[in-house]
């Protein structure tokens, strides 16, 4: 136990120092400060990524996180606005796709419908002006590798999804690229075929020693196949690591939420090694937080032990039990918070249980949003002293505030609690916001939003879709106003 504990501390510290320690210094592909935006929307935000020789690396994230864009940049189908791409140490920013030693398996395979299986696979070699015998030998060998011997003359339209998938892989691999890019290649297959292909792809990669860069939004797929996983969100890399690292030591609540299932709860760090969760002081192993700093506490459902009520650190009531084959999945209400627990012991609905988690399995993380409230400045456009109201400007939108009045031109610092931001029922928002993350906190969703110049924290009982835009409105009832610098105040008062 002790050595395990120390190892975790070391791992944790290494991670804090900054990622690249275990990596060699000649990556096959290297992205440096790559930035991409479309119509003013940032798709990749100063992305840095090193891809090693012969590794199976997966870019994982929700749709709209920039993973496919990253792949297209490596493939050469997209030019970054700034930043460099290195291939074997050489800058390839201006190299067109046909001159790169990289091949792609496209999302919907993009097989040539006017060619048969053989001709599709031979396409790249023919362009390289290889002799007929060489082409024939390579194509037949590759068709054997992907288990499609005897299918040479088949037209593409007469192949099943899985077979098309194999042709696409063969067509790319026959060119013997140093790096193979795979853009959600298993997305269109049914579950069973998908599982088979995952294993086959992994074996193929082992056999050929080609670097595979795999894009997916399926976390299970990423964990199963990869040597390393790159978790992306909102154009940034949240964490890079082995599947085990990412699962056991998620860097933040987003990663914890995205990879596997997790109970993510609000806690307060009392001191090194002690966190206050649901009003109880609980032992943990994480250190380095400020005293009484609000934190995210992440606990995996399988790490919660069910014990007697008296022995539990926390207690709860079972709300729902579902049998999942290997284990039971229980929904438990503890101190108004919903917990997910996976256990081989079954407790009936309504049972009072005690819950215990060993310190190693309690993961403490900095909150994704730096403050507890929204703190921002805004200028007063008009003050209506007689009605005790004013109009302030946020991102070129004028918003009316009741119950407070400051003079025109005053710059105010406003502290708005998360409950002051809401999605209007009629869809007419004061601002349009982009959803950066949605994390369920046991009672409600904690949603981080992005508008042109601000990030907002919102709590909501509604589930919203990450990487989409929603209208938002402000309610200043519980807001706190203070003047940045002197200006004439009349009428309105502060709480």
């Amino acid at each position: 136990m002790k050595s395990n504990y120390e190892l975790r501390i070391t791992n944790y510290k290494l991670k804090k120092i900054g990622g690249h320690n275990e990596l060699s210094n000649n990556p096959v592909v290297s992205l440096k400060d790559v930035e991409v935006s479309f119509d003013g929307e940032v798709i990749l935000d100063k992305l840095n990524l090193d891809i090693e020789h012969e590794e199976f690396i997966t870019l994982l994230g929700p749709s709209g996180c920039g993973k496919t864009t990253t792949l297209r940049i490596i493939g050469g189908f997209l030019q970054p606005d700034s930043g460099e791409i290195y291939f074997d140490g050489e800058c390839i920013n201006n190299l067109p796709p046909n001159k790169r030693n990289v091949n792609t398996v496209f999302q919907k395979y993009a097989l040539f419908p006017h060619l048969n299986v053989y001709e599709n696979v031979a396409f790249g070699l023919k362009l390289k002006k290889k002799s007929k015998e060489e082409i024939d030998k390579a194509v037949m060998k590759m068709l054997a590798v992907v288990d499609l011997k005897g299918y040479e003359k088949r037209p593409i339209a007469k192949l099943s999804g899985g077979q098309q998938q194999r042709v696409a892989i063969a067509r790319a691999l026959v060119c013997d690229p140093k790096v193979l890019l795979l853009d959600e290649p298993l997305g269109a297959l049914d579950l069973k075929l998908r599982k088979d292909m995952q294993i086959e792809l992994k074996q193929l990669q082992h056999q050929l020693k080609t670097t595979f860069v795999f894009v997916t939004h399926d976390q299970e797929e990423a964990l199963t196949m990869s040597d390393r996983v790159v978790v992306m969100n909102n154009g940034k890399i949240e964490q890079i690591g082995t599947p085990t690292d990412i699962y056991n030591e998620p860097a933040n609540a987003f990663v914890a939420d995205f990879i596997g299932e997790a109970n993510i709860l609000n806690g307060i760090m009392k001191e090194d090694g002690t966190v206050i969760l649901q009003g109880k002081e609980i032992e943990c192993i994480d250190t380095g937080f400020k005293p009484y700093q609000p934190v995210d506490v992440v606990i995996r459902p399988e790490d919660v032990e069910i014990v007697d009520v008296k022995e539990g650190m926390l207690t709860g009531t079972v709300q729902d039990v579902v049998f999942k084959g290997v284990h039971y999945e229980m929904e438990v209400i503890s101190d108004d918070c919903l917990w997910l627990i996976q256990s081989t012991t079954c407790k009936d609905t309504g049972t009072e249980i005690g819950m215990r988690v060993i310190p190693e399995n309690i993961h403490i993380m900095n909150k994704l949003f730096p403050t507890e409230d929204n703190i921002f400045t805004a200028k007063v456009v008009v003050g209506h002293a007689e009605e005790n109201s004013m109009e302030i400007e946020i991102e070129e939108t004028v918003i009316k505030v009741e119950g407070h009045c400051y003079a025109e031109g005053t710059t105010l610092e406003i502290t708005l609690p998360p409950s002051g931001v809401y999605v209007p029922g009629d869809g007419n928002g004061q601002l349009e916001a982009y959803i950066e993350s949605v994390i369920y906190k046991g009672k409600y969703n904690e949603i981080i939003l992005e508008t042109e110049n601000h990030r907002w924290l919102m709590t909501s009982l509604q589930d919203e879709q990450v990487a989409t835009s929603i209208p938002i409105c402000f309610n200043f009832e519980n807001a706190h106003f203070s003047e940045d610098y002197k200006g004439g105040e009349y009428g309105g008062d502060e709480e």
Partner: protein
Amino acid sequence: MKSKAPSIPYLIWMLLFTIIPLIMVIYYAFTDKSGNFTIQTFKDSLFYTDVFIRSLWIALVSTLLCLVLAYPLSYVMSRSSRRGQNILTMLIMLPMWMNFILRIYAWVLLLQNDGLIDLAVKFLGLDVPLLGNAGAVILGMVYNYLPFMILPIHAVMLKIDNSLIEASKDLGANKFNVFRKVVFPLSIPGIISGTTMVFVPTASTFLVAQYLGGTGDKMIGDVIENIFQRDKNVGSAISLVLMVIILLFIIVMNKFGDEEVVA
């Protein structure tokens, strides 16, 4: 099995206005004025062999010219923005909103002696008659039928998935090879339907040659129009021969297309 009921109105329409008239044409073609069976009508139509050949020749040249003009334009169109495509499509369709005869007559005015184009050509020091020859007929054909070549090719090119073009680049194709190995082979169905849609009407149309051609440029459509007023049996025979020739052309085109797609 899907219900055929919704197609019944059209099937009735087709029976009344396609199949019955076709049977009538065949009947007239094989009978003489008194209604007896004969093939003399076909022997008579041999008299117009050179008109047949000229018509097909003009149709072929017009079709090729249309293809040469339409293909690059369709390609550029399919690569341009949606807005650009809409504007271009509208400009291409715009002349068709005007009456057919009016459009041909406009060309007569432009090409005739001291017409606008004639004056321009004379100004450049050339004194050639612009109206009343095969060239003017071909010009009129191309002008009138070009949209029928552009639209099907454009439609097919739009359907070529951009990922196929990216895939070919990914596999090492430069711009020329992307075109030669992917875009062109995949656009062949469009070329075939465009060619058919231009060749068939140009081979059988009338009026264009009457207005823009000289006395020696009469086309088979004009001949049919002319003869039908006097002798509907011989007129039917000529029509039937023309139909068979066009049918053969379509069969050859489709066969060529199938082979091309498979190869």
